[in-house]
């Protein structure tokens, strides 16, 4: 059986749901879950339930792998050789996309970034091309298949395996090209937009920055993250880190609720692969209604508070 490594992302000492989806993409392979930072024994039950034959705590002799993406890329390259992996998969989160690109460059191997489906055995992957307008199927010709998976694109399914724990310290050092001077914390209590299972977005109709509070209250009831359209960001109602769409973030939640968003093609480029899209808009002719699943014609300031109350 071919061996596939999965780089596991954790939050507050637990496995992120998005990583379980990545493991599901490799089912049928012998899965080696690679963990950095968190204690593997605390993750054992969850990772074993979703198919990890082995859970390996990865470290490097040359320093803290969680503090340097270049060092972690070197350590992952060493892990690929150590465990004789024929594929290594990760999450296409902000950190995951950056890390895998560094790894691919360091190993000079092809990489398919932000896949929505993949076949590890055949080394093929499906991903967005042309800003969400088309899917491309790509075939990779390499000994090791590297890919990142779009968060929430693949639904996690349990497939119990042994989940033996082990440690591997790679004998690598940091190339020392980057010095991280400072980490500026955003609102850490908020759910990350690209990884959120549910997103509620406010467009131009939100009218003022303080009105996002209404969406945050609603989001809190659903375990959702709050997004913004480009029009709302450009009007100064929301920071760029909240922008969904071209020049912002690409998201793929199971539920996307667009409030007062007109539905420009550039917005769809960032959320088209969401499972269910709901639009609430005062204008019954808004383009978004032609391209979503459910629509409510109404004033967001009337509809959203009722939604929050009833959830």
């Amino acid at each position, binding site marked *: 059986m071919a061996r596939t490594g999965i780089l596991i992302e954790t939050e507050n000492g637990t496995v992120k749901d998005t990583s379980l989806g990545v493991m599901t993409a490799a089912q049928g392979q012998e899965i080696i879950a690679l963990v950095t930072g968190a204690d593997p024994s605390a993750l054992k039950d969850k990772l074993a339930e979703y198919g990890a034959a082995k859970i390996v705590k990865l470290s490097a002799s040359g320093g803290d792998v969680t503090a340097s993406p270049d060092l972690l890329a070197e350590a992952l390259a060493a892990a690929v050789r150590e465990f004789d992996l024929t594929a290594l998969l990760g999450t296409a989160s902000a950190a995951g996309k950056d890390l895998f690109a560094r790894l691919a460059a360091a190993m000079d191997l092809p990489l398919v970034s932000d896949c929505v489906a993949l076949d590890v055995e055949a080394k093929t992957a499906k991903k967005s091309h042309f800003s969400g307008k088309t899917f491309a199927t790509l075939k990779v010709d390499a000994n090791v298949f590297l890919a990142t998976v779009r968060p929430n694109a693949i639904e996690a399914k349990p497939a119990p395996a042994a989940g033996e724990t082990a440690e591997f310290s790679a004998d690598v050092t940091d190339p020392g090209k980057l010095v991280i001077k400072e980490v500026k914390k955003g609102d850490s209590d908020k759910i990350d937009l690209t990884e959120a299972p549910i997103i509620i977005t406010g467009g131009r109709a939100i009218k003022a920055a303080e009105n996002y509070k209404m969406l945050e209250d609603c989001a809190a009831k659903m375990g959702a993250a709050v997004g913004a359209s480009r029009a709302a960001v450009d009007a100064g109602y929301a920071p760029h880190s909240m922008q969904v769409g071209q020049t912002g973030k690409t998201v793929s939640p199971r539920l996307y609720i667009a409030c007062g968003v007109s539905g420009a093609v550039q917005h769809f480029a960032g959320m088209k692969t969401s499972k269910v899209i709901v639009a609430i808009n005062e204008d019954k002719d808004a383009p978004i209604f032609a391209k979503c699943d459910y629509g409510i014609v109404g004033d967001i300031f009337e509809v959203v508070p*009722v939604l929050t109350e009833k959830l």
Partner: protein
Amino acid sequence: MKICVCVKHVPDTAATIKIEGDAGFKDSEIKFVVNPYDEYGIEEAVKLAEKNGGEVVIVTVGKPEADATIRSALAMGAERGILVTTDSQFLDATLTAKALKAAMEKDGLPDLIFTGKGSVDSETFQTQYRLAGYLGVPVVNEVSKLTVDGGNAVAELEVGGGDKQVIEMKLPCVIGATKGLNEPRYPKFPDIMKAKKKKIDQMSLADLGIDAAARAVTLEKLEPVPERSGAKMIEGSVEEQVTELIRVLKEDEKVL
């Protein structure tokens, strides 16, 4: 200071993509533009050259028609361009990075390189890392703030969840630009006229010793992302609409 900006010639995001055959698309009828993220790189390079002196060179790997895209970049204030021609819109990221490196080496290596954070056509998000890897220089992506001082660059980038990192590195380095870095300028008519006279060196992949057939990633199929056929509209009073929406999302779609 010499600054290279890697620019990709891509279909306008508003263009309709008509698929031809298994993996082709009809590119003759649609508008091509400077890859939107690359505009932030061009603007930053031109601003740096205006402030500190220096030359901004646009480097593009693309079809011969990419000449027009380089002219747009030159109209934003870059000095000259280099076009490495290929016969396909989709060259894999490894070959593109090799071509960019070879073209820069031939022209004289720059002190600073900009790219966009990714391209809006193939969305591979990796060419800048490979270019930096081949050149053996530092790379950071999704940069929304940059200070270049002497031989150092300090970049601010978003790392997820709204968190930002401030990273220092030595020049030369590769900077992947994104929104927030600046406001790209709209070229005025005289700038567009001036750009027509600027020099663009053209060479093929083969001229640089790169074999286009050596690709490791093959595009096997292109298919449209299924379009939704229009919303099912939920009618009634606000109370009724919301009650029905919650029911549908919980019971029919099982997403709540």
